[in-house]
């Protein structure tokens, strides 16, 4: 079904203006990643809580552009409650989509709104900053660090 681009744009606008889970916690059972070294300007911290092989919660905060903020907001909702294996599959498919490669849109749900980022390669960093933070925290969790 072809989707009206303005619908996609509204989802991004919504997640930028009213982002989900945009508040950090002091809870020490969360892992945390400060993503400051990846670009000149986006500066966000992402936190994730894993329990019993599942992603229990994702939170974030910081100063970032529309694409960084909205993509991290959508990510935080999408991965909540998923097993680490499912979360990894979603992240992999998201990365395929952002790089213009074939992907499974069913697992990405709302995150498909970022498909167009593949056309703007200099913004790929924005669309993946939060996702890379979660990937690093999953890697640490898996490695038992």
């Amino acid at each position, binding site marked *: 079904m072809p989707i009206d681009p303005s619908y*996609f744009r509204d989802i991004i606008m919504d997640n930028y203006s009213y982002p989900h889970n945009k508040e950090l916690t002091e809870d020490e059972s969360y892992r945390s990643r400060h993503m400051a070294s990846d670009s000149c300007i986006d500066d966000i911290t992402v936190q994730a809580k894993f329990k019993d092989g599942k992603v229990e919660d994702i939170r974030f905060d910081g100063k970032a552009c529309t694409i960084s903020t909205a993509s991290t907001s959508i990510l935080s909702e999408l991965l909540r409650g998923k097993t680490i294996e499912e979360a990894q599959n979603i992240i992999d498919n998201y990365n395929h989509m952002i790089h213009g490669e074939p992907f499974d849109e069913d697992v990405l749900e709302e995150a498909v709104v970022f498909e167009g980022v593949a056309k*703007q390669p200099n913004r790929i960093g924005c669309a993946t900053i939060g996702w890379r933070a979660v990937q690093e925290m999953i890697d640490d969790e898996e490695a038992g660090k």
Partner: protein
Amino acid sequence: MNIRENIETIRQDFPILEREMSGHPVDYLDSCATTLKPHAVIDEVVRYYTYLGSNAHRGDYEMSAQVDYAFEGARKTMMEFIHASRKEEIVFTSGTTEGLNMVALMAIDQLLEKGDAIMTAETEHASSILPWQYYGCKKGIATCYMHLTDEGRITLDNFKKSLDENPNTKVVMVAQVSNVLGYQVPVEEMGAICKERGILFVVDGAQAVAHTPVDVQKMNCDFYCFSGHKMCGPTGIGVLYGRFELLDKLTPVYFGGESNARYYKDCDTLILRRTPLKYESGTQPIEAALGMAAAARYLKKIGLENIHEYELFLKRHFLERAEKELKDKVKLYNATSESGIITFNVYDNGQLIFPQDMASFLSSKGIAVRSGQHCAKLMGDIIDAPGTVRASLYLYNSLEDVDRLVDALKEATVEKCLDIFF
């Protein structure tokens, strides 16, 4: 040359202006990041590759002698360009960053003692702060920051006050023109004060040399660094100017071929070549040095005063239109700075359009600007914004280029910034 009357001819000197970006004729407003190159420079680089060809200072054949002549000629051109007193004061580097790092390393290692201090400003580029901070910290040498006005400007009164408050200051490091806001720093007066107090005066000329006449002797600086690519020359080349006595006294940071005259197996046997060759170990980017000299000749032909005057003319045009048409939409951070740099943020009904979103939107209209913190990350505290958009105007920009920017800013909304993704 009157640039206003000859703008079409000047634009024809820059072949890249014929290209398109995002389906529009390119409107290049990012000359602070790097400038476009005229035919004169491109041709000179090609002449090296298609005719001169050999290394410099190495061969005993005719081609090699021709390269030596051209290379040393380039040094002389650069000497004249910044009014150094002799050509031995010109050291070729890879650019401003390398030059400033070399100066910091040599000064900290050979001229400064524990307890001394280095004074710079929060508005400075990272290259003017980080080498001093990193190597200074290792030796117990603090980096301190001078007082600025509320708009981030360096003034003589504040400078003197800062020196009085930090009597251990042995080095002052500033840019002649700030790369974020474009303020002209009173370098001549500051240089005189430093000379009087026996303070080493180091100037970053990256954003100055292509925009205003530079006279290193008048500004009493000990070191002055700049890049070729920001003055219509090639990338990978720059100049470290040093007062001859200092250059001659100091030991270089790098060693290797061509910079040494003799050496034996034991310590302290190295005999370096004469200044400035002792600073140029290894093969230099010869074509880039020749290209930079061609750029210097090109700019001199147009006239640095004329370039400066033309940049201000373009900026005034922007400011006049902005005042009438962008009043509640655009926040300008440097309306009063005397350069072609326009630093701003755009608002959509009171909501900040994040600088990067703005830059992508402008790109979709064929307009190239820079967004971010412009390598001056201590600056955010002064202007109270997560970043800015910077449009930098230069001699090849037309009034139409400025008009396209204003028209695009008028139209910008957060939603339109997202349209580029669909």
